[in-house]
């Protein structure tokens, strides 16, 4: 093992093995979840605020067709005369557009709500996709061992040494080059989800592989194999539950990262298009109007994105500390 690899036993791998160990000593992860986790949750006001904030944001994102004052995608309802109106409390604004309007006359509040929904949706989709593939890959690698394991882990190593945004950028770029130009806006969302999910997939795979390796050598697994239980069944029935703890932590961390990466891609103009804007797209468009004084077009989406990212990150931080057996 190179020194770097020794060093870079990533948090995910350590978590993987450690969580398995702690699950053993606590009997079942569920019991630990019930007591210490909830306790430390209630003890930290910051975390509670973060959780409440996250729930509020996700909730409003889910409910936005009902709670948004306007539908920003309904072109017929847009009034060009209302374009670039300031927020309600500034001279020239009105309460029908509480946060002002953008250059096309779309209500900022509604655009932000829908944008947040898109951002969260893409984030969740990317993480879900990554989790599905990653966990499966990890189980396969850990169980099969041999050259399959080595191959998957080598690829994982190389990929993991690149930052997520670069991988997402390049996957996005290749997809764009391959797909016909006129289709690009319509399927942009799928391309973005795919691009963002590549690196988390590898992370999940690494962690799950670590836990699988630990579990594979335990007596009960050996016993099951001797009896002739199919490896897939062993993997799903026994190993998977033990791995859920760190998978959850990685999922939360990656959710925040996915949301940020999607925002970054959209900001660069390579993510979601203005016809289907996420928060990142709104910020990109808004930046052009910053100097002409229409600050609301960029600041409100920015604040929302910052709040969202912060809240999810705080939750992930707390979850990671709470599940860390070393700090118990």
């Amino acid at each position, binding site marked *: 093992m190179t020194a770097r690899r020794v060093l870079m036993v990533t948090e995910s791998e350590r978590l993987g093995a450690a969580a398995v160990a702690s699950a053993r000593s606590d009997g079942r992860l569920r019991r630990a979840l019930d007591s210490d986790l909830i306790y430390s949750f209630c003890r930290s006001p910051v975390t509670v605020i973060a959780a409440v904030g996250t729930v509020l944001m996700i909730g409003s994102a889910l409910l936005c067709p009902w709670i948004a004052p306007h539908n920003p995608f309904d072109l017929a309802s847009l009034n060009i005369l209302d374009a670039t109106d300031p927020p309600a409390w500034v001279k020239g604004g009105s309460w029908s557009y509480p946060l002002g309007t953008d250059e096309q006359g779309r209500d900022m509040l509604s655009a932000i709500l829908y944008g947040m929904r898109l951002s969260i949706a893409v984030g969740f989709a990317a993480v879900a996709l990554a989790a599905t593939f990653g966990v499966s890959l990890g189980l396969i690698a850990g169980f099969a061992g041999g050259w399959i394991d080595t191959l998957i882990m080598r690829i994982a190593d190389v990929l993991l040494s690149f930052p997520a*945004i*670069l991988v997402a950028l390049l996957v996005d770029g290749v997809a764009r080059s391959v797909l016909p130009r006129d289709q690009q806006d319509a399927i942009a969302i799928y391309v973005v989800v795919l691009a963002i999910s590549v690196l988390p997939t590898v992370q999940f795979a690494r962690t799950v592989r670590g836990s699988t390796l630990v579990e594979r050598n335990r007596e009960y697994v050996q016993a099951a194999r001797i009896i002739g239980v199919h490896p897939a069944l062993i993997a799903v029935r026994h190993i998977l539950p033990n791995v859920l703890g760190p998978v959850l932590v990685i999922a939360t961390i990656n959710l925040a990262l996915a949301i940020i990466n999607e925002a970054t891609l959209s*900001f660069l103009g390579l993510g979601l298009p203005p016809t289907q804007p996420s928060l990142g797209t709104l910020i990109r468009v808004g*930046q052009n109007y910053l100097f002409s004084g229409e600050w609301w077009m960029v600041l409100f989406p920015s604040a929302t994105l910052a709040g969202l990212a912060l809240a999810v*990150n705080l939750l992930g931080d707390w979850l990671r500390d709470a599940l860390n057996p070393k700090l118990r």
Partner: protein
Amino acid sequence: MLAFVVRRLAQSVAVMLAVGFIAFAMFRFVGDPVNSLVGQDTSIEDRAKLRHDLGLDDPFVVQFARFLGHAAEGNFGVSYQFAEPVQRLIGERLPATLELSFTAVLLALAVGVPMGVYTGLNPHTWLSRLFMSMSLVGVSLPTFLTGILLIWIFSVVLGWLPSFGRGDVVNLGGWTTGFLTLSGIKSLIMPAITLALFQMTLIMRLVRAEMLEVMRTDYIKFARARGLPNRMVHFGHALKNTLVPVITITGLQLGSVIAFAVVTETVFQWPGMGLLIVQAIGFADVPVMSSYLMLVAFFFVAINLIVDLLYYAVDPRLRLDRAAGAHGH
């Protein structure tokens, strides 16, 4: 030691070959080079001739070898978007990116390490808690948001600093530098801070975590039990042990500086490699994309190699091999 170096070199070459393969595949098969180079009116015979002239009819392996050969020389073909040799484009942009990255890393280290040491040694003071909260914000915020915030405050509201471009640059025999002019330095400030912020918080948290862990070790306890003064315990023993993994992980993080440079350059319209690749992707400019991939991969591989060697040099446990081993009892 030699075996180790050779092995790592071989690994690096293998990775570069793999990346080269991907870059070549992109280059050759994504989109049609001929169609991208010529206008719509060109006849089919002319296209076929062009295809042949470009060597696109040759067997795959030959093309791959040729690609690698060209890559080794730095020849990456011609950009679809700018109709200029990619090599020249990169040459123009590289100094901008390198200067920005270098400044950012320096800044991140200069601020991050002391903050990390302080919060590691005094984890419960209000200042430490403040730093930790700030660092959480720094880690959570996307780079471009920080950039926009800085632009709003310092360019729009205060009007102190320019919000785009590099300012005036001085050409030193091919290398354009912004360090030597006032406008160059002014233009550098906000982008460098934006780029450094994420790194800074990461380094701070890393140093802090390492410090906390080191302070719990037995040898620190023993050093205390021997009555060594705090200064010696903290900065003699603890710090050295902390910095070893920190240095190596920071080196590995250099890669993410290159990545986030892409975003920072876009926010500030900084004429570097990052802006180039974003434009290239938007345009589906495959030669630029594939050469960027090769270049970035090369950076990463080189950095990883250097970091591995550095770690080997610094930690005596790895250096003195099994050959020396334990003597006596």
